[in-house]
């Protein structure tokens, strides 16, 4: 049993660190380090830098622009990126629709869509959830009716992150209402500029319109935008899910945040002449979540090791989702706790670019409440933690 990096892997780790120091734009780093909101352009710019290096798509097959890395190298890359604070490319294009296109699309679709995803020329959003299809996604009702060379799409999608920025949307749509619900779903790519599409922002608890409802009113979609076969969309989506498990635990981000938290806590007055790290209860809670992240990290490594010998990541990866999200949410609580009274002010312009005033309270803690409230979504999205426990119960424990 061995968890050490080889000499080559250590070299690779050095290369990644050097690349980040040299190439991650300093203005974006400043924003990331100071909790300033990122713009679309920041993501586009950084992804283009990654793309130029050939490192934008570690998980893609080499023939489509992937890096050809081993699972350990992918892990090292994700870890160094996360610890540096460098953003991963937006997942909807790179990690969600692209694997479906290169796995199940035809040549024309691959050539048409993949290069623009890789270069961040085209942004995608996800049309899965509906107001009445959350955990029970397969009960979705947005219909796609074939009419000559087109599908006519009608329905409503919700929780569409980045809908206001996206150029295209990939949708699970119902093409057969007579069969078992999973067997009547198709995977359709839709241009957001198609007439009949309306995007309506949904404001979350932090006051930001992060997600949207997307209405489809007789939207005519060329039939050539269907991926694979009609009524096989659910299968494609499921296959995608089992391969999309890297980073779902968000270990690097949690480690980064814990490091920062520990530093801040050591500089935060406890009101009695010491710092918060002198408070055994706080220090204990911090230690507990650090320990949990360590356990999670090794759970993730074990999953990766299994993948590297050809095994598919199994339902045990539900562990990564449940624990990763709950640990991350607990870290949000600790940040609020450190901020104490200063978790309360809601001064939005502190987090916008160009703000040069004084922060209310410590700048690095100022958004702690917003994050806590917004991140309650983590245990809900991506397959709620309840659904993940169902998967463990059925698929792992055989209950």
């Amino acid at each position: 049993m061995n968890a050490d990096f080889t000499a080559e892997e250590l070299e690779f780790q050095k290369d990644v660190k050097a690349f980040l120091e040299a190439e991650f734009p300093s203005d974006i780093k400043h924003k990331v380090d100071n909790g300033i909101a990122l713009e679309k352009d920041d993501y586009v710019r950084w992804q283009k830098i990654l793309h130029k290096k050939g490192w934008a798509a570690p998980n893609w097959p080499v023939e489509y622009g992937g890096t050809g890395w081993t699972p350990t190298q992918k892990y090292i890359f994700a870890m160094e990126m996360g610890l540096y604070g460098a953003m991963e490319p937006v997942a909807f294009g790179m990690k969600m629709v692209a694997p479906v296109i290169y796995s199940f699309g035809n040549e024309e679709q691959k050539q048409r869509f993949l290069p623009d995803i890789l270069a961040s020329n085209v942004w995608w959003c996800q049309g899965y959830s509906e107001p009445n299809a959350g955990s029970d996604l397969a009960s979705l009702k947005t219909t796609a009716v074939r009419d000559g060379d087109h599908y006519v799409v009608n329905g409503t999608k919700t929780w569409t992150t980045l809908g206001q920025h996206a150029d295209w949307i990939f949708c699970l749509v119902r093409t057969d209402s007579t069969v078992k619900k999973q067997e009547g779903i198709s995977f359709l790519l839709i241009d957001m500029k198609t007439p009949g599409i309306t995007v309506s922002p949904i404001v979350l608890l932090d006051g930001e319109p992060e997600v949207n409802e997307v209405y489809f009113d007789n939207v005519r979609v060329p039939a050539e935008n269907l991926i694979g076969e009609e009524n096989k969309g659910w299968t494609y989506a499921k296959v995608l899910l089992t391969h999309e498990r890297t980073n779902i635990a968000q270990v690097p981000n949690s480690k980064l945040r814990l490091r920062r938290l520990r530093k801040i806590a050591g500089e935060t007055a406890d009101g009695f002449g010491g710092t918060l790290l002198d408070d055994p209860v706080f220090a204990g809670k911090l230690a507990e979540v650090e320990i949990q992240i360590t356990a999670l990290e090794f759970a993730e490594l074990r999953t990766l090791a299994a993948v590297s010998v050809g095994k598919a990541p199994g339902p045990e990866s539900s562990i990564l989702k449940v624990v990763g999200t709950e640990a991350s949410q607990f870290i949000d609580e600790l940040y609020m706790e450190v901020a104490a009274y200063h978790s309360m002010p809601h001064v939005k312009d502190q987090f916008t670019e160009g703000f040069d005033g004084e922060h209310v309270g410590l700048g690095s803690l100022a958004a702690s409440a917003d994050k806590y409230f917004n991140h309650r979504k983590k245990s809900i999205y991506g397959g709620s933690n309840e659904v993940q426990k169902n998967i463990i119960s059925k698929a792992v424990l055989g209950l």
Partner: protein
Amino acid sequence: MDFSYSEEQQMLQDSVQKFVASQYDFETRCAVLEKAGGFDKANWELFAELGWLTVPFKEEDGGFSGSAVDLMVVMEEFGKGLVVEPFLATAVLSGGLVAALGSDEQKGEVLAAIMEGKLQLATAFAEADSRYNLASVATTAAKSGDNYVLNGDKVVVLNAPNAQQLIVTARTSGEKLDRDGISAFLVDSQSEGVSMRSYVTVDGQQAAEVHLQDVSVAASNRLGAEGQVLPVLEDVMNQATVAICSEAVGAMDSLLAKTVEYAKTRKQFGVPIGTFQALQHRMAEMFIDCQLARSIVIMAAMKLDNDESADEKAKAVSAAKSQVGRAIRKVGQEAVQIHGGIAVTDELDVGHYFKRVTAIEHQFGTTDYHTRRYASLA
């Protein structure tokens, strides 16, 4: 042994409940928050008319009773309705301090005005590095003839943007953490040298950072004896802490009711999600947490109304804030989780209840702070 409400308490409860039910639905509340000052002046006048503003004050001061249990009754209903009017800041905390510290003349000027709905106040006690220790005071008050000159910075002063008068704790002697040497002053918010950076809090309240730069205050505006205010401040804080615990109890009851209602109606996989035993058990746990929270708040309110020692009262209040804080976390998070994505949106009231109880957790001391205080007194 009797835990039922008296006839007067019942009337008080009915009165606030009726107001909330008929005039304070969620949409109305959203509109109230948009008003100048972040609350509805007409509501405040109504509170005065209905006598609610007299509840925190003793009969001898012209009030209803000053009883912690009576206050609990009102605050719980405010919590259920997510009422934003600054009852706590003006009447309970600031009014309470004037009632406990003030001379007859000071009380005469201020308390009647509060009860008639004519005066808004805010109490500035917390500082950037005081965290929840009331004794940690770096703001200074230097005697200068018939005046005191105040210098310092206070943080997250609730209702400061609306306040005509500020009550400011400042040190007239001693070192930063000394229990002795803390004084309190009534400061006109328009005084020269007082500047504020106002903002809205995450749960929609008005607050400000208050900077005091050579603020001259007449000695006649000092509240209570010089340098001896801390025990009284702690006493009034105990009252205010039980008050927000009651508010949290009301808010959590609403969260539970809404969660159960949602679980009964939301269908996925062909059935209401409330039929899933896993969720039923979690809602049962929310119920248990709510009931324990109510129970301990009743205990603490009763203790405050009895002739107990300062330590006994502090212990009871810390027990309450600690227990209620634990409940806030569980009930709040579970309510959001069981509702799913819609509770993370601004549009649904559930998220706003969650934000309010979370704010309460961080006010006047967190769960851990109070568990520690209890332990130190146990």
